[in-house]
């Protein structure tokens, strides 16, 4: 049987789930085309969500070099979202084709 404590936890989780999207800050889309991230360099505000969309016929991934970020392999038209909370410069690359690199600059 579910205790009151568990119920409270569940409802807290649910409220985060339902409220969460309303809190979304800026959103930026980065396309993966022809083995390249476009734009390769971008600046967003802290809290912004960045969406990576793979348009290639080959899977790619998004892996942070200077930030803990790791997408699964993205097949054609798959996307991966990541919220950049902290200000700084973050280098990322494709885990399958590491020549593909990009940089996100996060401003306060």
């Amino acid at each position: 049987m579910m205790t009151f404590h568990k119920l409270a936890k569940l409802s807290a989780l649910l409220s985060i789930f339902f409220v969460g999207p309303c809190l979304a800050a800026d959103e930026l889309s980065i396309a993966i085309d022809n083995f390249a991230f476009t734009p390769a360099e971008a600046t967003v505000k802290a809290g912004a969500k960045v969406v990576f969309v793979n348009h290639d016929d080959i899977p790619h991934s998004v892996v942070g070099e200077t930030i803990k970020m790791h997408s699964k392999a993205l097949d054609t038209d798959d996307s991966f979202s990541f919220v950049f909370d902290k200000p700084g410069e973050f280098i990322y690359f494709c885990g399958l084709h590491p020549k593909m690199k990009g940089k996100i600059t996060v401003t306060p």
Partner: protein
Amino acid sequence: MQAEGFPRRETTMSDKRKIHDDSGQGLNRRQTLECMAWAGAGLVWTLNGGVPSAKLIGAAEAATASFSFAQISDSHIGFNKPANPNPNVTLSEAIARIGGLPNKPAFMIHTGDITHLSKPKEFDDADQLIGAAKLDVHYVPGEHDVIDENNGEAYLARYGRLSQGKGWYSFDHGGAHFIGLVNVHDLKAGGMGNLGAEQLTWLAADVEGKSASTPIVVFAHLPLWTIAPEWGWGTQDSAQALKLLARFGSVTVLNGHIHQIAQKIEGNMTFHTARSTAFPQPAPGAAPAPGPQLVPAEQLRSYLGLSSVRIARGKGPLAIVDSTLAG
């Protein structure tokens, strides 16, 4: 190392025919290599003391060959885009070709990208299609085979029972020493393929004490020589591996990944990449980026194929025959 033997774009088909009509006589090494790299299909080449000679199939069947093995690569089962909507069919055709080889290969190697997305059904389908050859198959993974949620555990569970680390291993056959290397893990930003310190340590121990006259055959997915650094077609730390093998009299390096034939000879080392059984990729510099190359459907099979390698006991010469699925 640069791609010394990689075909230059300006060679025309008529040039190549002329070279072939000359039966390899009076050619410099570069011309011979170009001829082999471009014409691929139906060409045998042998190495004697580091000097390559190219002949048409049938003319160069080495009577001394003690065994042969077949190489297939980049079957990409699960790929379904226009460049080849059904790679199961073309893989089957390649397997049928192997079944029809005049001398039954002792075994087969698959140099990776068995699947497109590391999905269980893709591995299942590949196993079933490749199994039709009824040959032992020695695999190494491509980057497409290690993108399951657990970074290659699916591959290891299926093919890695007898391997070390992330799937590397060696075995002996007919007096030759075969080494399967894995260079698709822990890739670094901006870099190319990666063998890693653990594997290099293992390799050093693996070849230690072996006679320098032992023919060595190394196979791995990503090229172990730098073919196109801007496309990542190479392996960051391959020079360390090749250094460990430099003392051997005959070293043959077989790779996949680039879906086209490229060859180079350097000292006692012969480098060769195989065609894909699924779809071609552009030659370096011929397109803005690598990736599946769409060719007219009726031409697709002339871009796909397999390799057959013969080893002659005791003398070190080794012949690689590339054939396409077209004819």
